[in-house]
Structures are given as structure tokens and as C-alpha cells.
């Protein structure tokens, strides 16, 4: 089978799809793209259905060579994009002919870019998904959770479009701004002292460099959390407060169960924004209701045909 040959894999490039659903009761993390907004646009530009396998490129420095004529789209972090050294527009679909080299430079703004290909990468799923889960050794090109390596061949089909196309500019996020992220309070929030909850929303937090695909860790004035509880199922966006008082926001590779007190959940669309923040970026939080979140999220899913 033909596809895209990896000349330079970059520091952490992972194949992802809509995530590994239906196995959390056995301890299997759902995984999936950290920024579902940029991933959804990359697939949409190519008329791929929601969750079509694509490549999540962290920080950049990736070089691929096409072995067939196809179309690709790159959305997300601003990484200088060239095809045979010719600069290309971001958040766009473009043709890639056999023999041509696509390069993604280091990210200038944002952390993760999504490279989709017409029809998606053709990789065998593990437990229903090709999403790469490094910690659990699941998914990816060979099914054992490894990130991209030099020499890998990412199998894909050929595609053809008449026109190039770009995401309309009003939809493009500004990854440079200091985000105000929305939080549905809940879980053990009622057991926090009132001033601790206020402190969470009043503070300017910073994103810890210890953050990874499992969790985004916050740095700030420690919160006092209530006592631990019996471990229960946890989902993406859950905000845990461990004994050191520095909150952890669970991301795509989250564990399935946790026992730390929960303060609430990050709005799913703001998880995408968080995924693009570099270490030490300033973060603030504001409350949002469940129903407002659901209405906005439903509209987002409908737009992208989930």
C-alpha cells in the first residue's frame, strides 16, 4: 500500500481518530485528539467524516514525502507549512503529488497541529480505534502505541478536489491570547470551602510544564481540597484537586477512574483551547452552566457531522 513516508517524525507525532470508546470499564483510556476543534476542521476540509484517522503533530519539525497523489489539510498550531519548500496557507486543504515533500516547521503559536489526508490514514484499529495511547501501548501504526518514527509509511488513499479551500477566518482561534476557560462546577465542589472555590475562579493560574496528554497541571496558590473519596469513573475535562492543592485537568489520555476530589469539568470546547497553550501560559477560569455548555456542544457536533 502507498501513503506518506515519514522522513522526520518530530518530537511527538501521534495517529488519532475519534477515540477508543466502550472500553473504559476495563481501564482503557479513550484517547483521541487533544484539540478536537482543529482536528474536526482538518477532516471537514477534506470531506472526511468526524473522527477519520489523522496525525496530531506536537511542536512541529515533521517532514513527509508523498508516494501517491492525494490531498491534505493542516489545522491547529501555526507551524510554517511548505510543499517542496513552497509556503502554503494554514487551515487549508491542498494537493500533494507523488514525490513531493511536505514540511511542518516549529510551532510559532499553539502547540499541536492536525494533518488530515483525503479518506484518512488506513491503519488497523485496536479495540475499535487507531488512536495512539503510549502509556497503554495501544493503537498507532503498528498497534502498540508508538509515536511516529522516521521511515514509517502512513498508508492512505488518493483523493481529488477541484479547488483549494480554507477555513473562514472568523473561525480561526487566536492561540496567543490569555484564555478565559469555562468550567461547569460540580462533583465535590459543594465540599470545598466557599473561599477556596472563589480562589479557583479569581486566580491567574499558569500551565505547568509537567502537563501531558493525560492531564494539564495548573500552577498557582494551592487550594485546600476536601477529603479523598472512593475512586469513581472520571471523564475528560474533570478538574481534580490532589493533596498538594494544584489542580489537574484530565485530558484525552486520562485514566478511567480517580479518587481525588473534583471541583468541576472544563467546557469540552475549551479543552481544545487549553491543548494549544504552551508551558507557563496564563489561564483563568469562569463558571458556565451544564445546559449552556450542552447547547453549544450540540451545535458544534451537528456542524461537524458527529
Amino acid at each position: 500500500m502507498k501513503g506518506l513516508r515519514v522522513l522526520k517524525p518530530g518530537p511527538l507525532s501521534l495517529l488519532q481518530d475519534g477515540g477508543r470508546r466502550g472500553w473504559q470499564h476495563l481501564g482503557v483510556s479513550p484517547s483521541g485528539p487533544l484539540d478536537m476543534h482543529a482536528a474536526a476542521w482538518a477532516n471537514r476540509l477534506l470531506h472526511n467524516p468526524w473522527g477519520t484517522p489523522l496525525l496530531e503533530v506536537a511542536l512541529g519539525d515533521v517532514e513527509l514525502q508523498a508516494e501517491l497523489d492525494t490531498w491534505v489539510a493542516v489545522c491547529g498550531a501555526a507551524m510554517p507549512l511548505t510543499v517542496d519548500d513552497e509556503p502554503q496557507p494554514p487551515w487549508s486543504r491542498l494537493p500533494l503529488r507523488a514525490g513531493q515533500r511536505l514540511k511542518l516547521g516549529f510551532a510559532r503559536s499553539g502547540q499541536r497541529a492536525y494533518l488530515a489526508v483525503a479518506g484518512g490514514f488506513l491503519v488497523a484499529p485496536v479495540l475499535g480505534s487507531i488512536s495512539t495511547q503510549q502509556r497503554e501501548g495501544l493503537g498507532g501504526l503498528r498497534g502498540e502505541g508508538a509515536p511516529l518514527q522516521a521511515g514509517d509509511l502512513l498508508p492512505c488513499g488518493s483523493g481529488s478536489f477541484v479547488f483549494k479551500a480554507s477555513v473562514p477566518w472568523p473561525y480561526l482561534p487566536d492561540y496567543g491570547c490569555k484564555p478565559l476557560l469555562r468550567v461547569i462546577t460540580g462533583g465535590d465542589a459543594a465540599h470545598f470551602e466557599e473561599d477556596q472555590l472563589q480562589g479557583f475562579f479569581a486566580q491567574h493560574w499558569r500551565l505547568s510544564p509537567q502537563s501531558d496528554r493525560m492531564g494539564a497541571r495548573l500552577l498557582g496558590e494551592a487550594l485546600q481540597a476536601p477529603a479523598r473519596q472512593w475512586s469513581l469513573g472520571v471523564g475528560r475535562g474533570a478538574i481534580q484537586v490532589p493533596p498538594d492543592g494544584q489542580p489537574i485537568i484530565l485530558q484525552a489520555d486520562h485514566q478511567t477512574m480517580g479518587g481525588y476530589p473534583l471541583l468541576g469539568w472544563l467546557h469540552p470546547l475549551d479543552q481544545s483551547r487549553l491543548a494549544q497553550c504552551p508551558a507557563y501560559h496564563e489561564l483563568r477560569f469562569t463558571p458556565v452552566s451544564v445546559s449552556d455548555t450542552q447547547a453549544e456542544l450540540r451545535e458544534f457536533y451537528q456542524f461537524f457531522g458527529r
Partner: protein
Amino acid sequence: MIRLEPAGAEALLLVLAEQPDALLPQRIALLTERIRGELGPFLTDLVPGWTSLLLHYDLCRTDHLQLAERLKPLLERWIDEPSSKLAGRLHEIPICYSGEDLPEVARLCRLSVTQVIELHAAGDYQVGAIGFAPGFAYLGELHPRLALPRRATPRLAVPAGSLAIAERQTAIYPHSSPGGWHLLGRCPWPLFDVARVPPCPLALGDRVRFRVIDERSFVAEGGQL
């Protein structure tokens, strides 16, 4: 009293009890299967906890209010259900008790190594939860004479198949991973294999007994020294 609480915009938490008890894992397993059977198409994941069940739902098909309404009759039936007829499947798992921490566990518990092995192998355990890693089953309850806090410094890599203890629980690490529990032995069988259906032989509420084997049988049963 069962509590239903939204857990973010796409999940509903059922708090089923305030404290875990011996019958609860099987009862939660029963409820999980029933909900999966009746409401499966609306749900993406059902995650049992020690005293709870988290339902991840498909927001394009339902929401927490609609789900709560549909769950009502199911939960009412479940509360009144007698629990005596429930019994999880029994698994007999071979263990070669040759773990690195056996001498230290014996010293800390003021027992001989033989007594530690006998006490551990005599237990009749139950799967109380599955989490932490794929196929990692928390088994309870460990004999009180063997209860120890976790190691002060977790190991960076615990070999796959390691049988370990901490507090009043015991478990087998299905894959090599970091771990803070005390290692007592090794199981030769794979406990999480994506090529099998289901990938994990243990299910919530199942019962587990350990069979003592020597190194030769460990290798014969597929274990790697």
C-alpha cells in the same frame, strides 16, 4: 438513597451507596449490564466505581435529564432486588510466589515468608473495580495481617504479571508499568490481551482464588522468568 448528578456536559454519575460492601461489586455489575442492555445506544461508556457508576452518554442522542428519567424504573427495580442469588464467576489463577518484596513484607508483618504465602493464597477475593491501567483489577479483601501501606517510593517499572499487595487489596499488573505496591509473585497468564474477546478475563464482581505454583510450572504455563 441513590443520587444522580451530571458529571460535566456528557456524563451522568450514579452514586449508588455511601460505603462499599461485599455485595456491592456484583450488584453494580448487574446494574451495569442491565443499563447497557436497555440504554446502550445512548451510552459510549459505563464505568463502575467502588460505590458508583459513571455513564458517558452521546450528547447528540440524549442528555442527563432524559437519561435520569429513563433510569428511574431500572433503579427502582434494582434497589429491591435480593442480592443472594448473585455470584460472580470464579477464576483460579496460578501464582509463582517469588516476589522481590516477600522477605520485606514478612518482616513488616512479623510473619515468615511461608506464612505470608499461605495467608495470601488462602484468600477468597472479589473484583471490586477495574482501572488504573487496562485490565488492572482491584481484588479485596486482603487478610488484615498482610495490610501494609504502599511503598514510600514507587518502582519505575513493575514486571508484567506481578502479583502485588497494598492496604487491604491485592492485584496483578497486566503490563509492565510504574507501581507502588509490594510484589509477592508472578502470574504466567496474560491478563489483558486485545486479541481476545473480552480482552480481560476478569469482570467486576468476579471471584478469584490463587493456586500456588513453582517456577517450573510458571514457565510451563507460559510465564517468562
